[in-house]
């Protein structure tokens, strides 16, 4: 595939600057800055209401930011879409019930100036065998794949996918991501699934309450929540004393079992062993899920 990756003046595929959007009193997006280089696969992760979909909408020019600027390959969103640089799959964008799969994809192709052959898009999205079927007769996962074919048929340089694998079963999800990786484009996808971000993204952007709260590789994000988790069994644990141990950042006590969040687990384990009852010690790396939970709930209960 020959992609003439058009680049903006700064070489960025996507550049969001100071993006803000409010709906009434609710600030959905409260100042987002994001820079995605051409060729990156970026996961936009966050709980419901974090502002992911609103950000995606503004990125695609479907809604106008209250403040800030969107640039896709150096162009305004509408211009980038007009130039056929963007393919997108939205959560709430429907298919036509009374049109067939092939008709729907062919229509999107016809509206673009340099689409890929419809058959190629159908095959790539794994829906070639459904071509003649009415869209009303598709399962949820099949619909998602048809929408993916519609995003792909434009032969875009940037793919924007909002919750692309929702309604897909495990196997379909795996196939989907395999297809995705073969396309070699810049991809921004919003997702709830941590494992998806972990396995398929070069980079994870974490959003909460309309802001980007972490941005980096999966390893970076993990490190963001200090290192390791230590569990042990201690007779008559004293939470206050445990919290005071060096290297410990948080303490959870359930009966005799303690769980310590550790910035420096080496220091913590040495100090803990001063207690002769300490046993069954396990030290594990924080999972992305731990990092995600820590980051997205941090301060939310203040």
């Amino acid at each position, binding site marked *: 595939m020959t992609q003439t990756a058009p680049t903006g003046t700064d070489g960025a595929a996507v550049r969001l600057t100071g993006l803000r959007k409010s709906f009434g009193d609710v600030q959905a997006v409260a100042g987002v800055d994001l820079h995605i280089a051409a060729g990156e696969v970026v996961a936009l992760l966050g709980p419901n209401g974090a502002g992911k979909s609103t950000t995606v909408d503004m990125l695609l020019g479907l809604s106008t930011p209250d403040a800030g600027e969107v640039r896709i390959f150096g162009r305004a969103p509408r211009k980038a879409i007009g130039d056929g640089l963007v393919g997108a799959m*939205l959560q709430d964008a429907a298919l036509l019930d009374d049109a067939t799969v092939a008709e729907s994809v062919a229509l999107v192709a016809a*509206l673009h100036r340099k689409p890929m052959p419809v058959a190629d898009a159908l095959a790539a999205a794994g829906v070639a065998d459904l071509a003649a079927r009415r869209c009303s007769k598709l399962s949820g996962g099949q619909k998602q794949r048809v929408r993916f074919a519609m995003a792909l048929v434009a032969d875009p340089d940037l793919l924007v996918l909002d919750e692309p694998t929702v309604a897909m079963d495990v196997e379909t999800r795996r196939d989907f991501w395999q297809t995705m990786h073969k396309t070699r484009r810049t991809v921004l996808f919003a997702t709830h699934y941590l494992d998806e971000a972990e396995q398929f993204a070069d980079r994870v952007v974490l959003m909460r309450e309309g802001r980007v709260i972490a941005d980096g590789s999966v390893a970076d994000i993990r490190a963001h929540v200090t290192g390791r988790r230590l569990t042990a069994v201690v007779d008559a644990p004293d939470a206050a004393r445990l919290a005071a141990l060096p290297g410990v950042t948080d303490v959870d006590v359930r009966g005799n079992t303690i769980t310590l969040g550790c910035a420096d687990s080496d220091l913590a384990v040495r100090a803990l062993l001063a207690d002769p009852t300490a046993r069954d010690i396990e030290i594990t790396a924080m999972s992305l899920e731990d990092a995600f939970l820590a980051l997205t709930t941090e301060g939310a209960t203040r």
Partner: protein
Amino acid sequence: MNAQYLLLECRRIMRSGRFLIFSMVMPAVLFVLLVGMYGGNGSTYEDGSSVAAAMMVSMGAFGAMSAALSTGARVAVERGNGWQRQLRLTPMSPASYLYTKLIVAMLVAVPSIALVSVLGATVEGVSLSAGGWVMATAGLWLGAIPFAALGLLIGLSIPADSLPSVMGLSSMVLGMLGGMWIPAQIAPDWLSAIMKATPSYWFTQLGQSALYDNKNLLTAIAVLAAYTIVAGLLSARRFVTSAQRA
């Protein structure tokens, strides 16, 4: 404007059987029924004009109006289910989308006029001058433009689930007030004032120009043009605002 999009839209309309029956078959059936009841055997009004011819024009107008109105209003469904958002992700301009919908609405208005006219000329023995036939077909068809625009405006303004009731009601009210069902001449003064504010009244006037030298023809054209422009502009405005997520 994209030809393939227009083609797909036409195919989709053809697949909707119920829709075709309402816009095409119903006016024709009503025409035959009404003539059977009031206008058989070449009966005439007091002024000597043919009852069948008047009913042909009225039912042709009613069919064209309902077809254009309800086709335009189908955009409500596409707004509700997110298809419009999908189309916004393509290079097609919002104007092309609206124009395509208007053209489809106008195409759907053709069969009802054609069927009623053919029935009029063959079964019901309506005879008109060449100019009369042009006015009763092409004139009526062009006169349906404001209703396509009004349909679009309604479709962009109401939620999809209230579409059938709103459409049924507007066709009926516009048909009655437009004098398509009952001649406007027998209406009392207060009612006739209301009727003259509706586009359907002037649409009927346009149709009647096929039967006799109607001095209201120019007014009718002007009023229908004004409705087209206003409904068109309001639709364009609605379309831009409805794209923003609430």
